[in-house]
């Protein structure tokens, strides 16, 4: 695949991001370019489809085809594109609000269809772009601390949600670790079916330092003995360890048809 390895910078355009200094999204952008380079992709064969949010600005900074669509709809648009154009490498991305609030209904269905594409969610547990309202993943503590609406609402568990919808590849990473992000993304893109990456990320403006320190304290890599092809083990992690980083689940590829599909397991 990597006949001539391109530099990550060749996947970055000249546009300066609008993100706040210190925003986790900068790291994600770097890891995107690194993964593309590592995979030896042609720039024009990549399409990055996002919704709306700070994180959804990402496609605008890549030297690849990009579409910053409307709030919550990256998956339908990416699915349509990939279905019509299976030759492309399609990556959908966006924030936790985009994915799990307004976009939540598209997730199980994108997964059921199992297109060979990757969905990368930058989860800062807040609505960044609209200035700090609670997202579906905001913890009750933070909502109470900040006096946000929805204090009685339990947060959603993104990894469990996609597992339950039948995703074949599920990983978690964090925006502070470029190396790990790049690794996860590379593996996800290579996976011949729908792959999901949950990226813990920091919004320095609306989540701030306490959140970041807490995150850094809690995250840890999956134990090396974790068998990612074991669905039971994956469910254990998904349900009980929201801070575990790594590939949580990878359904074995039973047959690769012409569309490079993973055999769906019912």
């Amino acid at each position: 695949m990597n006949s001539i390895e391109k530099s990550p910078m060749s996947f970055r355009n000249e546009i300066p991001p609008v993100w706040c200094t210190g925003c986790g999204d900068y790291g994600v952008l770097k890891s995107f370019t690194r993964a593309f380079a590592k995979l030896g992709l042609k720039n024009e064969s990549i399409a990055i489809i996002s919704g709306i949010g700070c994180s959804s600005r990402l496609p605008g900074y890549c030297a690849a085809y990009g579409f910053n669509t409307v709030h919550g709809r990256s998956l339908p648009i990416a699915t349509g594109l990939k279905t019509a154009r299976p030759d492309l490498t399609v990556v959908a991305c966006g924030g936790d609000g985009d994915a799990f609030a307004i976009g939540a209904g598209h997730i199980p269905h994108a997964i059921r269809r199992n297109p060979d594409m990757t969905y990368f969610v930058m989860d800062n547990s807040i609505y960044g772009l609209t200035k700090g309202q609670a997202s579906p993943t905001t913890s009750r503590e933070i909502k109470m601390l900040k006096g946000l609406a929805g204090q009685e609402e339990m947060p959603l568990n993104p990894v469990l949600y996609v597992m339950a919808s039948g995703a074949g590849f599920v990983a978690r990473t964090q925006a502070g670790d470029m190396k790990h992000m790049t690794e996860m993304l590379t593996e996800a893109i290579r996976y011949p079916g729908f792959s999901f990456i949950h990226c813990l990320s920091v919004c320095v403006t609306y989540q701030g330092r306490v959140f970041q320190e807490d995150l850094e304290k809690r995250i840890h890599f999956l134990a090396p003995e974790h068998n990612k092809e074991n669905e039971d083990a994956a469910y254990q992690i998904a349900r009980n360890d929201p801070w575990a980083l790594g590939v949580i689940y990878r359904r074995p590829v039973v047959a690769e048809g012409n569309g490079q599909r993973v055999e769906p397991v019912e």
Partner: protein
Amino acid sequence: MKEKQVWNLSLVGSGGDGVMTTANMLLKTAARTGLYGMMTQSYGPQIRGGEAAAHVTIGVDPVTMVDRKKDWIVCFRFADAVRFEKEMEAAKNTVVIHAAEETEIPAMFAKAKGKNIPIPFLKVLQEAGLSELAKNVFLFGILVRALGWKEEDGKACVAEMFSRKSSAVVSSNIRAFELGLHYMEQFTGPAKIFKPKSGVSRPVMTGNEACALASVAAGCRFYAGYPITPSSEILEEMNELLPKAGGKLIQAEDEISALGMVIGASYGGVPSMTATSGPGLSLMTEMLGLSGIAEIPLVVVDCQRAGPSTGMPSRMEQSDFWHAVFGGHGDFPRVVLAPTDVRDCYQTMFRAFYCAENFQLPVIVLSDANIAQRAEVIDPVDTDSFEKPKRLNWTDGPQGYRRFGLDALISPMAFPGTAGGIHCIAGIEHSEKGMPSSDGAMHEAMNQKRFRKWEALSETAVGWHRHYGPPKAPHVLIAWGSSAAVAREFAESHPDFAVFVPLILHPFPKKALQHFLKNRKTVSVLEMNYQGQFYHYLKGIGAIDGNAQSFKRSGGQPFHIEELGQMIQEGGIL
């Protein structure tokens, strides 16, 4: 004015009576013998198994509408017939055929002095050793005789209808058919004899089938949709057609997703569409705006039904017009087309893709429950004569590709995969290269760019309208969609009337109308919705003036000709 050579029949029954099959066979046989025809269906509230009526009109010339006045009415149960009272009128010469067990003739048939033929369906079938299930084929035999059609044409149709069944089933149905044919002889000679103008056999299809066939012919290769009455058959038909044409189809999880997928596929360079009805169109509103600002071609067929909200799902109305033209926040160009009948669906879909692909904007086709689901015998369509949609793709060029160059009327599209055309687009207002901009001047310039296309399209769409009636007739009716037929029919028998039928509603062919209206005395706009949506639109754009009248009512049954006559009279025109 010569008498129209048509025969109007209604068949009424309940689930299991098979009246729809009989009606279908009738229409197919008409088509086979070189005649024209139309069939509409009507159901009670029961999901399945309740009362149902099929209204069939057979004619020597193309049939444009089903008359309310019936030549023949067949009913297995009078109670069922009463439920469809509003759809069928028994006139003086109406022949009523009914099951012999049904003895109390209801009031609605009081006027029918034609003939009253009780038939002991079950008894006759039993005596012939046939199952009750063959009742509808037996009836078909009766009707073929009544119409004076050839036995072999009827037989061929029966054979075709049951071609997937066992030969035993086929042969017993053939027997039932023959039984009907001969049974009728004891009562009457042929009720009506048509001489077809030519013996050429024609296709029979519904508006939804025509939309699907035409779309694939026009180059559509991606469809995503969510089922909804009365549009679902387009989804189902495309699911048959697209794989064969190398295309793809997704049944989406909802309408937002459906139009999102269409946008994704079209962004990928593939002509794409969806179909829906009012509630779905409402849900698609945000996506329409995205298509508008990001200049992504797409086609939406809206099979209108009575609204608002869930409304009356199986009844026609023309009340999504305002939403089609004005729906969605912000300003963006869109095109709205409307076929007037099944055959029109062909040309309309070609034009829809032409507008979408060539001008990079969203196109809405306003069909309705009537056109969508009625079956018609149509003259074959020569789609080769239609202009093929063609997207201006960007293939290569000097550095600095600008997706939204302000200097071009139509900016070439570089779709993913095109080397050297890399760019990022958004639903956000943007610069020529697609970068986000919040500059008012750029926004104005981009609005101008987007609407310039729409104006250019308006110049291209010359002749996308029809007119009927004498050029000097003092009174003009403007009508669109399936309501155009009744206006046209009215004008045929009233030489003081002329009719203008736009096939493109937005942008509206204002010049053509104004030319048509020269030296006329009155102008009226006919449409089926409560607020007079099209009428107000025409006034808003200055196409008609304050003296024009609005003829309108809420949806339900199609307009009938007496109704229009009354509106015209009440409007003081006649």
